């Protein structure tokens, strides 16, 4: 899976194995802009990403609580997600995410 950090244009190809969510993958790899302060409780809003492309077979619906938090993040977009709500599954390898630049 690939994280593109908008602020620097840097592209990071990461191995998600051993993690439950993409927030954890990003925090482990020190992806700039992803903090995951609350650990995945959807209380902090610090793991906002834009999903750029989703591989076949990868699905993860937004919950009401996630949509609620996405109302207040910076740079919301149609593909906005909280990375803590994106599970690591066998289909995750082709996922492309963008970390929006801080406003």
């Amino acid at each position, binding site marked *: 899976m690939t994280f593109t950090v908008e602020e620097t244009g840097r592209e990071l190809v990461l191995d998600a194995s051993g993690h439950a969510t993409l927030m954890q993958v990003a925090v482990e790899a020190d992806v700039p802009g992803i903090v995951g302060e*609350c650990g995945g409780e959807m*209380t*902090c809003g610090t793991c906002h990403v834009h999903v750029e492309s989703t591989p076949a077979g990868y699905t993860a619906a937004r919950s009401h609580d996630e949509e609620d938090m996405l109302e*207040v993040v*910076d740079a919301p977009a149609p593909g906005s997600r909280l990375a803590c709500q994106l599970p690591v599954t066998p289909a995750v390898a082709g996922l492309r995410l963008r970390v929006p630049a801080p406003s």
Partner: protein
Amino acid sequence: MSADVHAAPTLDVDRCLTDPQFFAGMQFHDLFRRLRAEDPVHWTVGDYERPYWSLTRYDDCVALMSDSTLFSNLAGPHLPPKGRDLTPEEHRMFGTNTHILMSDPPDHGRRRRPMNKHFSVPVVTRLRPMFSEIVTDLLDAAEAKGDFDIVADIAAPLPVKVILRLLGVQEEDWAAVQQMAVNALHSQDAEFQVDGHDELTAVVTYIDQVYQYVLGLILDRRATPADDYATILAQLRDGDELFTEREAAFMAVGFVLGGLEGTRNAVSVGLMELMAHPEQARALAADPALTSGTVEEVLRWTTPSKNRLRVATADTELGGKQIRAGDWVVGWIASANRDEAVFDRPDDFDITRTPNKHLSFGHGDHTCIGRAMARLELEILFPAFVQRFGDLQTRGEPEWLVSDNATGLKRYPVRVGV
């Protein structure tokens, strides 16, 4: 488990753990160090009305706060003064099963989830200009005075100006609301005991005063919305249902009490430590990148709220001890934050400490909802303070608040260098 803790010294340990005066200062950490080593899950039978389990290790405190079903919040979030049970009327006034701090699953989540986004990092970060302006004004005023007090001039007014302005309390009422909060939360300190109330009665009485005040705000904002947190809280919904007046008003009570108390205590102790470690203060003044580390270390070091109370809802085991349903279990997070199994050199104040996974905001479902606001206040204040005042001299000893929960100063007079 160690026999000697249950023999002769037990009485002293337990008397200490049930004596608010014992906790005025930082000496109590010596006792916690001993308990972590000798009896980390300690049945405490001292001078309080209820005995309770004292947890002093990090992992046990995390376990306590991680399971809100097994360990209930309905007796209150902290060890109450004198360890006394609340009466049914006091529970009503305290907001039990209405306030999120005194709610269990599933009601807790139902009440908390709609609030989370309003306290999230992106929302709070947008408040930075307002917070910065308040900090600059406070530092200007302190500098102009020359002789000033760390608590009265910085630590206490900072959260009053931030929190009460955000809530939408009119400025002429700030002092009165601040006094209600002090009376509610500092009743173990003789200086703040009023009207002959017993310590717990004072807590309940003054929380009720705060409640009555903010209820007025909530009802007003339901009729006339404004651009403030009172309006946000007044309009909270659980699905399609508006929160009850009591639920919304108790959210505002938490906003006031949580917002005013923890920040004041962290600021007072944090500034004292920075003054006591001038080399670290100079490093922070020169390098803003040290700000986050400073904030987290002050939070760990101070642990502005020392304990978390839970009630076991079923028989269970913690640290090899049998806990029975109905037992009070107190997680001393002030001790957990100095646990040598987790923190290297735990008794050193070190703004470069990393990692620093302190528990000062709690853990689990009840993790402090206002933590992003508190962090932002501290992030703005600490570097600005050390840059402004590189040459402060003390004019007297710091005076500690007497409390088995709050860790903070009452006074610390200082003078700007000449």
